[in-house]
């Protein structure tokens, strides 16, 4: 052991190695690379690499995520949470598309392509004009609809204070009625193997 708590294990990471893996982008734009793109440039890229799942207008296909729409629905019975209606930071869009999309072929997009595709997603949400050039320089001109829509976990005040009490043990309520049954929906997978028949 050296340096007190140190064991001298591992080796120094090289700058090239850190650069290859340290690609996260923070809400203030830290981590954004050089490059740029417009929605017009992004449209054909989106059509080619994204639209099969997310739809030509980012509206989603089948059960795949919708990236656009849902403005003003967050307090509705069935909110539609998209980049436009829900995501608080533009950095997250860039970071996630760059690192993890397209699904099944992640990390295949150039920085310019990511800028263009992100611009197209913003355009699909009516957040920018189609010729707006998204880059590190124009970054903070984009307003996110739900930027102020999040609060830090407040369960300690909103819940724990009231629920850390000795609970009722007897005569806790007068009546109990069944108000909902899972078998009415009947969406539970059926099992088609019995243990003895499945054996070989």
């Amino acid at each position, binding site marked *: 052991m050296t340096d007190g708590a140190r064991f001298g294990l591992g080796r120094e990471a090289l700058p090239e190695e850190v650069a290859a893996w340290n690609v996260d982008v*923070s809400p203030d734009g830290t981590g954004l690379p050089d490059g740029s793109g417009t929605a017009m440039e992004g449209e054909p890229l989106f059509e080619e690499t994204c639209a099969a799942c997310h739809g030509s207008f980012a509206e989603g296909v089948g059960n795949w995520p919708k990236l656009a729409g849902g403005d003003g629905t967050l307090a509705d019975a069935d909110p539609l949470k998209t980049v436009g209606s829900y995501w608080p930071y533009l950095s997250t869009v860039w970071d996630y598309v760059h690192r993890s999309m397209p699904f099944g072929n992640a990390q295949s997009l150039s920085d310019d392509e990511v800028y263009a595709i992100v611009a197209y997603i913003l355009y699909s949400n009516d957040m920018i004009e189609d010729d707006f050039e998204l880059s590190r320089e124009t970054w903070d001109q984009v307003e996110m609809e739900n930027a102020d829509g999040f609060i830090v976990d407040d369960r300690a005040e909103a819940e724990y204070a009231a629920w850390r009490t000795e609970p009722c043990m007897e005569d806790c309520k007068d009546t109990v009625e069944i108000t909902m049954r*899972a078998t009415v929906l009947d969406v539970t997978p059926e099992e088609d193997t019995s243990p003895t028949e499945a054996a070989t």
Partner: protein
Amino acid sequence: MSDTPSEKSPGLASRRQFLSGAAALGAGAVAATGARAAGPDPLITEVQDWATGLGDGVDATPYGLPIRFEDDVIRRNVDWLTADTISSINFTPIHALDGTITPAGCAFERHHSGAIELAKDDYRLMINGLVDRPLVFTYADLERFPREQQVYFCECAANTGMEWAGAQLNGVQFTHGMIHNMEYTGVPLRTLLAEAGLDLAGDLSEKWVYVEGADASSNGRSIPMDKALDDVLVAFKANGEALRKEHGYPVRLVVPGWEGNMWVKWLRRIEVTDRPVESREETSKYTDTLADGTSRKWTWVMDAKSVVTSPSPQAPITHGPGPMVITGMAWSGHGKITRVDVSKDGGKTWETARLAQDGANKALARFYLDTTWEGEDWLLQSRAIDETGYVQPTKAQLRAVRGLNSIYHNNCIQTWHVKANGEAENVEVS
């Protein structure tokens, strides 16, 4: 009722198939203490094959699977929940398990870009950011640090999430099975951070670590420094053996008491930062929308929760009236479970169950209520209490604060309607 124990009752066999295993076990077992056998039992009076011939040799099974009669104790998928099976979830068969340790082979999986294959030789772990020395470790390096060993539960933030709006899935595996509980061996994260040196980070109370996996989804999450320096483990063994591929082989993060999404698998990088990254998995996902449309973020802790695993829809009562065991599990991200109460009448009256062992910190506890059933209807519930005095709430209490669209962190009291025929159904009660 048949008096030949090995024969299935036709009435029971015609039910939903997943009841059939239990039905076969139950047939013939109805005879209560003191009942008289109709005749000699041939399983006793006739010499059976296994008592004359030979079993398998010790070289037959270098690494074994459960006996074939337990083939229904498996992970299950609900195909309509997600768009495909790659970024998806499956469920631990908790209806059939007992004790607290989850067998790794049937412990639930949740991936965002599939279960990747990463060899120990190819494994690298980087620590970078606000550290004195950015470091790269190999797998072999990690095994040279002092180790810790602890049992913890890993519960998906979305466990029971499909039940927010009502009773939906009819089986405890599906309503509560996004959980496993294993004994982990690994290196404290604080040990690795010390190796990289935190002097550069300055006031640690304001610092964060960003952790990400080697898979395409990366699953990056931000963790405040006080948690990182407390009890987080960089784990390489679970239940005594290497992590399963689907659980992060060769290295995963263990974040005791906190939502499963933060237990980053195939861990490849730890970055010390002066701010949270606000990644996709802590903005778009794992944020909890309230009734007014605002959303909670950084809801890390999993609150106290419990559920009766038997009887339950997949584990009906098949033995008829008489003595029986109600059992289930309880857990809390705030610490130890100190008590579990059980109600048979939908919460009008409660009796305190027996904990099989003293509650362990941020780990599953097993409870039993040794009781008698006379064939009456039950509205069966369990209610966990942890060492902070937190009492597991009802769904109505949760909804009153949060509304119906939180998706995550549903730790409500579950109700099973046990009927006169012994079957159980997932219900909500007033």
